Each structure stands twice: as C-alpha cells, then as structure tokens.
C-alpha cells in the first residue's frame, strides 16, 4: 500500500473548513430550535393550567385568549379547594401513602435481606417465581382481588387501599441487588461480634442502601397520589376517597360549558405536591425511574 493521498491546496482546505464551520453553526441552531420548541410544547399545558386558574370565568371565555390574566384572581383556588373537598382528599391520600410506604418498606427490607443474606431451602426457586409474577399485567389480579376484599368486608376502608399493594416484587428485587453489593464479610463480622440481624440491618445495610430506599419511598408516594382505578372500585365513598378520584368526581364534565378556571385551580393544587417533590428530589426520582421503568 502506497501513500498516495492528494495534497489539498491550503486555500481549498480553508474553504472546506469555513464551510464546515457554517454547517456546524446551522446544525447547532436547528438543534436548539427543535429542543426549545419541544420544551415549550412540554411546558405549555402547565403554563395554560396556571394562566387559566388565575382568570375570571368571563376573561377565560373571551374570544381572544389572554396569555396572562388581566386581573389575577386567587379566589378560584379557594373555590376549588372547598368544591372538591380537597382538604379531606389530601389527608386521605397522605394517610394512605404514608402508611403503605412505611409498611411496604419494612416488608421489602426484610424480604430483600432474606434473599440477599440468608441461606434457606428453595431460595432460588422462590425468587424466580416471584420475578415471574412481574410479567403478568396488574388487571389480571384486580378482578379476583376485588372479590377477595369484598369477602373480607374491606370495601370502603383504608385497609383496602393499603394492604393489597404492600408487596412489590420489583422493589424486593431492586433492594436485594443493592444488598448483594454489600460484602458478606460485614455480616459475618457482625455475627461474630454478636450483633443481631435487626441491628445489623439498621446500622449497616439500611444506611448503605439509602438511595434505593428513598427512590422506593418516592415512587410509592407518587403511586398513592396517582392511583385511580383500584380506589374507584373499592373505596369511592367520601370518607376514603383518594385525591385523583376526588378530583375526577368533583369535575365530571370536561367538555362544554364548564367553569374551567376553578377546575384548573383544583388541578394546580393537586399537581403542586408532586411538583415540589420533583424539584427537591429529582435525582432520586430519575434514578429510581430509570431502573424501574414503571409509572409511579
């Protein structure tokens, strides 16, 4: 093979170089234009929600839309809060979310510990069986679970909103993987020192896997906040209603002659906690989501 490249003249090369630079700049402008356009498309519903929620009904209905309320009206929020009984819904959802998160964490930690650290007969078979259940869509369980909780007499209680979803195979799997990364020698050393399992879990394993636990907590809370189908089936009474159901029930009409400003104010109130969680705990949510691939 011979080195037979054609040497370009210096001037030609500079021309090529200038052309390339122009191409690069155009590409960059296009990339930013596209991204910013998409970002606006993503943000627009949020903006429109806030904008509408601060308008009077008359202003909202003007044939030329205003992109900022002429007169900022916070009273929509008060109206929405009372109309949809949001206070009660918040308390219900928070209660269900907190209790189910705490219980779920305890169960998950104990199970993950058993799978990661203890030796027992049938461990691998059991674990494989658990993972296999993840393939099955949740709707398949719902039918029977509806019958089961009816038979238990759990309808319209908090229990029915909490207990059926306490065990998540996926969270057990996630935490077990995390626990496995902690060297077994630490556990054996603790045993030699006479540390109890619970103390070891509390002092060593939990601190070391805190990020995973936080991710699980957030996803679990978001799950409570967004749950709709199951609560509608089994606990749709006023005393136990969850926030999403309450919101949907309070504003059954979505089309036609609706008082949208109040509706949008209610939506904004419901969205706010999630938004705050997102702002402060973005890192954990993104980490949890990218590993789980589930909608909270």
């Amino acid at each position, binding site marked *: *093979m011979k*080195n*037979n490249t054609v*040497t370009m003249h210096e001037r030609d090369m500079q021309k090529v170089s200038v052309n390339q630079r122009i191409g690069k700049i155009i590409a960059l402008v296009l990339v930013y234009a596209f991204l910013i356009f998409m970002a606006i498309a993503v943000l627009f519903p949020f903006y429109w929600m806030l904008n509408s929620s601060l308008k009077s009904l008359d202003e909202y209905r003007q044939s030329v839309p205003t992109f900022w309320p002429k007169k900022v009206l916070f009273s929509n929020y008060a109206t929405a809060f009372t109309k949809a009984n949001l206070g009660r819904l918040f308390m219900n959802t928070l209660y269900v979310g907190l209790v189910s998160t705490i219980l779920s964490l305890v169960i998950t930690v104990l199970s993950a510990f058993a799978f990661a650290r203890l030796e027992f007969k049938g461990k691998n078979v059991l674990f494989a069986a658990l993972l296999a259940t993840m393939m099955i869509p949740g709707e398949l369980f719902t039918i029977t679970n509806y019958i089961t909780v009816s038979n238990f007499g759990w309808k319209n209680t908090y229990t029915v909103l909490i207990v059926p979803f306490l065990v998540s195979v996926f969270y057990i799997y996630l935490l077990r993987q995390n626990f496995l990364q902690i060297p077994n020698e630490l556990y054996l050393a603790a045993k030699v020192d006479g540390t109890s399992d619970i103390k070891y879990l509390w002092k060593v394993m939990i601190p070391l896997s805190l990020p995973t636990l936080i991710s699980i907590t957030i996803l679990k809370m978001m799950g409570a906040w967004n749950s709709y189908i199951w609560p509608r089936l089994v606990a749709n009474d006023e005393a136990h209603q969850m926030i999403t159901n309450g919101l949907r029930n309070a504003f059954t009409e979505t089309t036609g002659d609706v008082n949208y400003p109040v509706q949008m104010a209610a939506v904004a109130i419901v969205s706010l906690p999630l938004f705050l969680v997102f702002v402060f705990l973005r890192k954990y949510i993104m980490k949890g989501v990218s590993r789980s691939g589930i909608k909270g």
Partner: protein
Amino acid sequence: MKVVLQNLTKIFPSRNKKSNEEVVAVNDFTFEIPDGKLIGLLGPSGCGKSTTLYMICGLQKPTSGRIFFGDDDVTDLAPENRGVGLVFQNYALYPHMTVKQNILFPLQNLRGADKPTKEEMLERAYSAAQLVQIDELMDRKPSELSGGQQQRVAIARALVKMPRVLLLDEPLSNLDARLRLQTREEIRRIQRETQITTVFVTHDQEEAMSISDMIVVMKSGVVQQIGAPQEVYDDPKNLFVAKFLGTPPINVFEGRVFEGILYIGEERILSVPGADDGEVYVGIRPEGFILDDGGPLHCKLSSVEVMGRDVSVVSTNPFAVSPVIRSIINADNKVNTESETVSYSLKRHKVFIFDRETEERVYFEV
C-alpha cells in the same frame, strides 16, 4: 509527509470554576517530524503527550502555535480533512460491526470524487487487513478477538484510508507483556512497509526506545529532549531524562565538583575537567560500573542477583539518592558475596553530572 509543530501550546481552563488556575498541558512545543519516520512521544502520565497527539489529529485545538503537514497549515482544519489515521488506546472498534465493516467504515465516509467503488473499497480493506495479518478474521465481531487482534484491526482501520500521518495513542498499554513485545515489532514493520509518518504516545520508555526513529521526552507539558533513542540515552540533557530512560534506572548520588575532581562524600571518584565547581547530582548508568578492588567508589554490598549473562550487584551508599544502587556486571567477574563492601571504578561515558539546583547537565571533557 513531514509534520511540523510550531510553538504549539495548549492551555486548559481550570475544571474548578472557583479557582482560575489554568492547566498548561503543552507548552511551546516546536518540532519537525521528518517524512516517513516513527516518532515516540514519551513521558509520565499528565506530561501532555496525549494532548499533543490529539492536536496533531485535530480532535483538540491548540491555544496557540501552528501545525503543518508538509507545507499545508492544518491548524484550523477539522480532523476529517487532515488525512490522519488515529488508533485509540482502547481501540474504539465499533462493537456492533464485524472486522470487515469496521475497516470499511472510514472508506464509506468518503464523498464525491474521492469515493472509491465497492470493489476498490473491499480490495483496500483486504490489503490493509493483510498488512496487519488479520485477513482471516474479517467476519468476526471485535468481542470475539483477542486484545492483540483488536489492536491490529484498529491499525488496519486507521491505515485503510491511506492517511498522511498515522497516530497511535498508547498502542501497547492494553496488551500483556508477551504480546507487547510482539506487537511493537509489528508496528515497526508496518511503519517500515507503509512509510507513513507515524507518531505514537507511550509512557513506557523501553517501548519508545525499542522501535522509534526518534523520541521526544516530555514532562509537565514541556519538551525535555528530542533525538534518536540511543543518542538521548547516551547524552541526556537533564536529570529527568537521565532518570526516565533505561532499565534498570540510572543510579543517582549527591556529589560535588571541586577543582575538576568529582567527589561522592569524601571519595574522589573521577576527574571531570571542564566542569565548574559546585554541588551536583551524579548519575551513573548500571552498566557504567567496573568491579575493581582498588576502585574509588565504595558501597555496602546487599545482594547479588544472577541474571545469566550478567549479574546485578545491589549495594547501598549513604550518598545515593535512590535507596539502592544497582550495577550490571558481566557474569565472568566473580563477586565475593562474603565481603561486606564492594568497590567500583567507573566508565567515564556512563557518568553524567547535573547541577544540584537546575538539574541541568554539567558537561565535562571525556
């Protein structure tokens, strides 16, 4: 293609936003690489050798200075217009393509009049593969190849577009010791056959010395010395270069020159006519020692390591900078292992003295 680096400088802005310290990766590097030679850029990690390579390649832009390929100023040219071939340290073979697809890839990028026909491409890919002796592996994926074979594929991929300059970034560092010896001969052979001006970067002085036509020794962004390997080894310009080249490394002592005589401690070691008086470092190559009971340099004997043809005598001396002194002696000379001390006389041309302050070489008449 001759490559000229003119006052090449690269300054990286500080990574830490708070402090404004800049990192001078390469400082005022001027060098003309003659056509068709194999050049080794040599230095410890962080000395700027890789940055220099990336600047020649075009992946990094120099802060100041110019780069010429032949008479063309390529400083502002994008890498693809420079006609360079680059072999990455970990090869950067596309894992989803076969060996053949990997080698064909640069050719398929060509556009317009330069674009060869399909047959020409295949022909060139096969001749490049033949050159590096991997033509039987064309349908494998990189993951099915050994490290040495991957290395060859990477070289073939760099060569297939007939670059004006071939650049290799730490080409041997990912290979085991045996393959390393074999592959460096390979690189030498390929370079000889293709006659492409080749620059490679390494931190391993043995590697650089063994195959380069010329080596460039760098330290903290500054070129220390440029020359043929033997020349640099025999005539280091400063203590750093002397210490960096050679295995086992050079032995360094604290000494002083007084009225043309070199002293280590109170012992008169050598007459060094022409050297100025003052405190110095004395560097003695391991092969510069001669066993001599009447010799001027006395050391405490620690051990004798037999290496077959040679023996290595390990001893200590209170004035040595390194913890032990290692000399290489022909095995014909019997060392009295019972003795507590060992005495040497020295080969004059294997002794270098350096100013204690500047660490620059102090020359004397040999």
